[in-house]
Structure formats: C-alpha cells, structure tokens
C-alpha cells in the first residue's frame, strides 16, 4: 500500500475511510482494475474520520466519507468529490398500521414531542425511537433534513434527538432492532432495505431511487471522496473513472444514486 503511486505505466491507489462507502468502493475498484490491468486499487475501511487522517498521514490517496465534512475538517483536505447519494428510508416495525409520516411528524417523533403512535394515526402505544450514534453520516444527514437538528437561540446548531432514543451503531443493527421490536421507528440506508421492516412514505412519497433523483423524496446523504495536496496520476485516473458514466453505472447498479 502507501501513497507512493508509480509514475510508470501502472500505479496504485489506496482508498480508506467510511465502512458504508467501502462496499461501493470495492465494486468501483474491481471494475476499474478490470479495465486498467496495470493499476491496482486497494480499498480499506476504518471510518470517515480515519479516512481524513489517512490522507493526512500520506498512507492513503483517497479518503472516503459517508457524511459532509465538518468545519474543522475542511482545512485538512484540498478537494472533495461527491461520488454518489444514498437514500435514507424511514422504517417501522411490520406490525405497525402507520403508512405515511410528514417531515414535521418525523421531527416531532425524534425530538420527543410525539411519544405515542396514536398521535400519528397508529394504535395507542408508546413509540420506541431508534437512532444512530452521534457522528454517523446517516444520522447527520437525517437530522439535518428532518430539522431534528436546529439552530438554537445563539445560532449554534444542536442535535435535538430525544435523549431516550435507543442508539444502534450500524445500518444492520437498526434494521434488526426495528424488525424485532414492536412499535419502533428507525432509519436506514435505502440500499439495505428489505422486507423484514416496513418503509413509510414521507409526505406521501415512496423512498425510491427515482424519487430521489427527481427530488420528490427528500432524505438522502452523500458519499464523498476527499484527496490531499498531491494527487497522483493514478488517483486522478480513478477519480475520473468514478465520475464517468461507466463509474456511475456501477453506483446505480449497487442500489445507490448517481450524482449525474
């Protein structure tokens, strides 16, 4: 590994960072290497923070994030490229009668203002709220779009998620939790949605790739690649590939949303 990509015919690229982006990166890398046999792309995990650290340390060429850069991180990278969007579906237990929620209702549920399903048209049962950990890209995008995070009087943006919400550390565990616990609500990456849980429509719109592309379904998060000062030729080639039609086809193929 290492960032010392060759200047000769071939070269190597190392990407590191978010484990949510990792599977997609693996697929992109595989297709890229099939087309350019002189090049290798190594895909490493580690988490979004680790991705930025790795390009700083010079051990990776590309950092992968599943969330927007924080202000304090902006100075650490020289360029960021959104490579795909991932829809976020709001999910509830299959037994629940509720079919649709408005963004406002979702906000009220997550901030603890609504605590019973009957207030949103369901049965009389307390709502168990499941969220992701602080710092998670999915949560970051979700609270921003649903306005669960809002500027307070001093103008500082705070995440108002109810302190009693159960926190699960991953897409998979949120899904399993919601699937196995009655009266729960959660949110997961659209790509991982299956029939163990029920996705509600938001403002009457079904969460689907088409609806996100045409802008009617509102909740999504970006997958971002960032690079440092020096960008090797191989890295540039790979980035160009990812943003090309061919690369974006891979994105769509794997259930994510193209940025084109």
């Amino acid at each position, binding site marked *: 590994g290492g960032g010392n990509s060759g200047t000769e015919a071939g070269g190597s690229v190392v990407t*590191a960072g978010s484990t949510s982006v990792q599977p997609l990166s693996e697929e992109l890398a595989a297709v890229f290497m099939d087309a350019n046999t002189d090049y290798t792309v190594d895909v*490493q*995990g580690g988490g979004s923070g680790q991705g930025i650290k790795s390009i700083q340390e010079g051990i990776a060429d590309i950092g992968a994030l599943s969330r927007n850069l924080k202000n304090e991180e902006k100075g650490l990278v020289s360029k960021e490229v959104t490579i795909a969007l991932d829809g976020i579906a709001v999910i509830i237990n299959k037994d629940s009668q509720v079919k649709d929620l408005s963004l406002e209702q979702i906000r009220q549920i997550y901030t603890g203002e609504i605590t019973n399903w009957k207030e949103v048209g369901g049965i009389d049962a307390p709502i168990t709220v499941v969220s992701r950990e602080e710092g998670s890209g999915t949560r970051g995008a979700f609270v921003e779009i649903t306005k669960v995070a809002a500027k307070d009087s001093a103008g500082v943006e705070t995440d108002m998620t109810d302190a009693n919400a159960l926190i699960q550390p*991953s897409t*998979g565990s949120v899904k399993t939790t919601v699937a196995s616990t009655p009266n729960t609500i959660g949110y997961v990456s659209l790509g*991982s949605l299956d029939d163990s849980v029920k996705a509600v429509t938001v403002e009457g719109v079904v969460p689907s790739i088409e609806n996100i592309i045409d802008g009617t379904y509102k909740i999504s998060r970006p997958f971002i690649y960032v690079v440092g000062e020096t960008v090797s030729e191989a890295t540039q080639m790979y980035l160009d590939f990812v943003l090309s039609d061919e690369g974006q086809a891979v994105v769509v193929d*794997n259930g994510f949303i193209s940025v084109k």
Partner: protein
Amino acid sequence: MNKKSKNAIFYAIIVSLSALALISLILIVGFILIKGLPGITTEFLSQSPSKMGKEGGILPIIIGTLYVTLVALVIATPIGVAAAIYFNEYSKDTRSVRMIRFFTEVLAGIPSIIFGLFGFAFFVVFMGLGWSVLSGGLTLTIMILPTLIRATEESLKTVPMSYREGSLSLGATKWQTIVKVILPCCKSGVLTGLILGMGRAIGETAAVMLTIGGSMRMAESLLDPTRTMALHLYMLASEGISEEKTYATAALLIIIVLIINTIANEISRRMIKLS
C-alpha cells in the same frame, strides 16, 4: 440444615449452573449453525466475494483470517511464554515487576478499538507497514499477550518447588530446568492461554478494522492488506448487506474455531501422553 440437604443443594447448584452454561452455548451455536449451515456451499468456500459480499464466497477472507491469526500466534506465543517465564522464574518479585504485571492486567480491559487506533498509529503509519497482515497480526499480538502471560504464569506457579530443586541439585542450569521439567508440567496451562488468546484474535473486529485494511482481495504477502472473517461478518451484518452470507460466515467461523481447538487439544493430549 443437615448435611444431606446441604449436599443436595450444593450439587444442584453446581450441576444446574453448569447446565445453564451448556444451554447458553447450545442456544448460541445452534442458532448460528441452523441459520448458517445451509449457506455453506462449495461455491461459498471456493469463490471470491462479489457485489459487496452479497454474492460469491469468502475464500480470500478465510485465507486472510488464517494468515492474521497465525502471525499473531507465532509472534505472541514465544514472547508471551518467555515473558511469563521471566516474571515467574527469573525476576525477583520486585516493585517494578509487580507494576508491569499490573499494567498488563489493566490493558486486558482496554477496548480493542484503542488497540486498533494504537496499531494504526504505530504499525501502519509510524513503522510504515501500511494496512497489512503484519500490522493486524502485530496489533493482535499485543492484545492477546496479557491473556497468554497470565495463563502461563498461573500454571508455572502450580509446578511444585520440589521439581525445581530436584533438577537444580542435579547440576541442571535454570534454563534446562525450565525446558525439561517445568514447561512440560505447564503445557496444558499454556495451551489454555493460547486457545483463549486465539479465540480473541480470531473473533476480533475493532482492532483489525483499523490495521489490516479490509480489502477483499487475496493477500499474497505479509505486507498485503486483507480482511478477516470476523471483520467480514461485521461488515455484512452492520451494513445490512446479506443476512444469508452473514450467518454462513458466522457458522463457518465457529466450525473453524472448533477444528482448531480440537487439534490443539489433541496435540496437548499426545504431548502429555509422551511424557
């Protein structure tokens, strides 16, 4: 209370607690095997993963797991056993030795993610080993050392002083005494430590996630990145990629651990028989 009922209660407690342990084991293992065994096909065992792990098999990942575990054990065993020998047989029971022992024990309780971060900062970046089998193996080495040292030390302590005296009085050196008399008596203790340590190494995710990279390609050298089964399992499960593959991987992992443990026990049985 008379003795009869005391005895009855005693045995009832011992047996029912033991049964409880066994039942939880059966529950967990049974749960995974039932859900996972159908997914273990020859295809699963012989192919590389594709579609983010949703399809295909896990061959490179099995190989990666064996590499990393082997590196960890090959490095940790001699160092751990030697360190235990040093602390128990050579060093005087001084303050500084007690301090080291103490800190070693404290480290056993530090979450593995911290070992991961350390491994990343030290092996991956500082030593320049990159994300690799070696970086991961070395990180695991440090993680399992406390268990190994502790288990070895405990069994060294159980060797009667009279054996040491017998050997030394025959003009054997300290080292000869250790190798020929003391260690043979400790084999099962060391092995226990190894099995516990290996279990920890094989099942670990957080520490390897940051140090071996997680690449799904087949590792060709110690400096290549790779992915272990536990890490793969974690990715499959936490990103919700494929339930079938998740359980298949888990079931396979359990089978592998079972095989390794059986071999280890068989080896120790043979060794004990020989002496």
